[in-house]
């Protein structure tokens, strides 16, 4: 059969199902068009969050219902909308077309491709605003989401379905941790259940987003990633909608039983965009001029991160929101809001960054409230005491700076702490498999690095990994299995390290 016959047959099938509905339209008249917000009279049947259409293909979303007017936020520039123009309701809530074709694409919050690769076929319309899954549909977080970052996977573990905040000043590597996490999911695509990644860029420079996309392509991580971008030059409306578009796409995959990771980079700019819209809408301003529902803005978004039980498909959405602080102040309005919403935070500190500790994670202020349950037994058994020892080292380090004489025990604790800090350093875009992470941590916590000079620790680690890859494949397989370290594995670890130390030369 020819292609044209195929098309005609499909058309006929569709016509058979076509039902004619007498259309009722609710219309209104534009009264004002100010800074991306239109005030229209009429529209007596408009609903909050409803999509409305203007003439000349412009569209908007109803955000305020007043006694005899409605306020509409515009999705486009709205330059052509004039006083007296007609506006129509559509009876639809704002939604985004989702399908597998979105993987490896860059889109805006309306689903319009930004990568110049042509139209994206949509399978299902997913509403941007939706009530999060209830208690009955959920189950506790119990599967790890490995970031490939030693400091996080060992001390602040993240589980699939968790909401973990990444917080810190600008330029400390918040986005780097998020990108490393995306890159690390590549390894899962070979064996375990894959994780689909969605990176939502809010108010970012276009060059930054381009760099991230290039890095993801370079590391073969783009094939399972979707980038939703509402960049700095885009309208505040698009920046406000971007995270909701991201989570709507995530829900499409989650409904199919997939595990999804969504990164919101960053929610500070999201709050700014919403503040801008709220002020133009003349909503009453509260603290720092944010509107009264700024908490709800983020809580309803992050509540959609979920681990569904098997009855409901078993999918999950893990959220990694990012918040930018000013001068390390985590007690500001938006940071405290998001800290209280999430299940933990990874706090990056400028002082640590400046002395060369990268990722600059402040272990004392960072916490994962639910991830521990998802951590593998093998990692749990080696990293248990490290967090405490590292925190003790940081406080002792401050005292040691006074130069007073220290006892032998304190000195040895300080020396060990230095090596621990050193071993937790990790270059950007180089996530590490769990087996190698365990090997490094086991070595440092079991004093195998005590006789290695601090400046040689990183070389020691690198060469140890190379050695293990060639001489201890079986050990690495056992460690990757995730089971608790037994005597046999401990013996193997001990033997590998002793053998390596014989060949390691300074």
């Amino acid at each position, binding site marked *: 059969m020819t292609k044209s016959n195929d098309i005609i047959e499909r058309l006929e099938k*569709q016509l058979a199902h*076509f039902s004619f*509905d*007498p*259309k009722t*339209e*609710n219309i209104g008249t534009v009264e004002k068009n100010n800074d991306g917000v239109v005030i229209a009279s009429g529209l*007596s049947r408009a609903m909050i969050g409803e999509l409305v259409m203007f003439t000349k293909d412009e569209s908007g979303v109803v955000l305020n219902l007043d006694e005899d007017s409605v306020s509409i936020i515009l999705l486009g520039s709205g330059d052509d909308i004039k006083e007296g123009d007609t506006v129509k309701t559509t009876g639809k809530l704002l939604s985004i077309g989702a399908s597998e074709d979105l993987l490896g694409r860059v889109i805006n919050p309306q689903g319009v491709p930004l990568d110049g690769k042509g*139209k994206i076929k949509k399978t299902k319309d997913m509403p941007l605003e939706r009530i999060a899954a209830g208690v009955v549909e959920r189950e506790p977080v119990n599967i790890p989401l490995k970031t490939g970052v030693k400091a996080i996977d060992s001390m602040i573990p993240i589980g699939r379905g968790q909401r973990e905040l990444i917080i810190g000043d600008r330029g400390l590597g918040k986005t780097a941790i998020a990108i490393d996490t995306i890159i690390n999911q590549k390894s899962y695509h070979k064996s375990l259940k894959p994780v689909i990644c969605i990176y939502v860029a809010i108010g970012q420079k276009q060059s930054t987003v381009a760099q991230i996309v290039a890095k993801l392509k370079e590391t073969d991580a783009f094939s399972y990633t979707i980038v939703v971008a509402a960049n700095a030059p885009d309208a505040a409306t698009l920046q406000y909608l971007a995270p909701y578009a991201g989570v709507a796409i995530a829900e499409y995959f989650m409904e199919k039983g997939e595990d999804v990771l969504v990164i919101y980079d960053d929610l500070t700019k999201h709050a700014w965009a919403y503040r801008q819209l709220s002020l133009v809408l003349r909503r009453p301003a509260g603290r720092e001029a944010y509107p009264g529902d700024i908490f709800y803005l983020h809580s309803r978004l992050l509540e959609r991160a979920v681990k569904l039980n098997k009855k409901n498909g078993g999918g999950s959405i893990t959220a990694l929101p990012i918040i930018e602080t000013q001068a390390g102040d985590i007690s500001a309005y938006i940071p405290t809001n998001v800290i209280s919403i999430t299940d933990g935070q990874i706090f990056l500190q400028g002082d640590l960054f400046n002395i060369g500790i990268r990722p600059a994670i402040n272990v004392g202020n960072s916490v994962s409230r639910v991830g521990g349950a998802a951590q593998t037994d093998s990692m749990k058994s080696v990293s248990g005491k490290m967090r405490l020892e590292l925190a003790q080292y940081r406080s002792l380090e401050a005292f040691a700076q006074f130069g007073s004489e220290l006892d032998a025990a304190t000195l040895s604790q300080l020396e060990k702490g230095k090596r621990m800090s050193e071993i937790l350093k990790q270059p950007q875009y180089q996530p590490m498999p769990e087996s190698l992470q365990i090997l490094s941590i086991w070595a440092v916590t079991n004093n195998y690095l005590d006789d290695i000079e601090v400046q040689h620790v990183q070389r020691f680690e690198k060469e140890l990994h190379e050695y293990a890859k060639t001489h201890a494949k079986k050990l690495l397989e056992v460690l990757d299995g995730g089971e608790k370290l037994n005597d046999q594995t401990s013996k193997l670890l001990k033997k590998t390290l002793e053998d390596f130390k014989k060949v390691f030369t300074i």
Partner: protein
Amino acid sequence: MSHKLIKELVLASYTNGNLDPEKVEKIVRLLNRALLKQYIKALKNRELETIVCVESPYELDKRYKKNLEDMFPKKKIAYNLDPTLISGLRITQNDLIYELSLKITLDQILKKIRENYD
């Protein structure tokens, strides 16, 4: 002056369902420019509520007109011709439009095809 009061003034401007010029003149004298603007807008809205606009591709016969008058009692019906509708009617009542024309059906079919095919 509140929005509620403007509405009350609009209601007071009518006598037996018709706009009373004497009452309007009295009210207008009391209002400043901003309030007058609100008053005119409210009057326009009130007038729109009383009118039903029926568009058809050809002149409707008396039987249809009678049916429409029964459907919208106490409303003034304005009949307009719009040949682009092909067949059927378009009824506009205040901010509601009832699309019952062949044109809208064809438009819906076209839209559906465009959504499904590149």
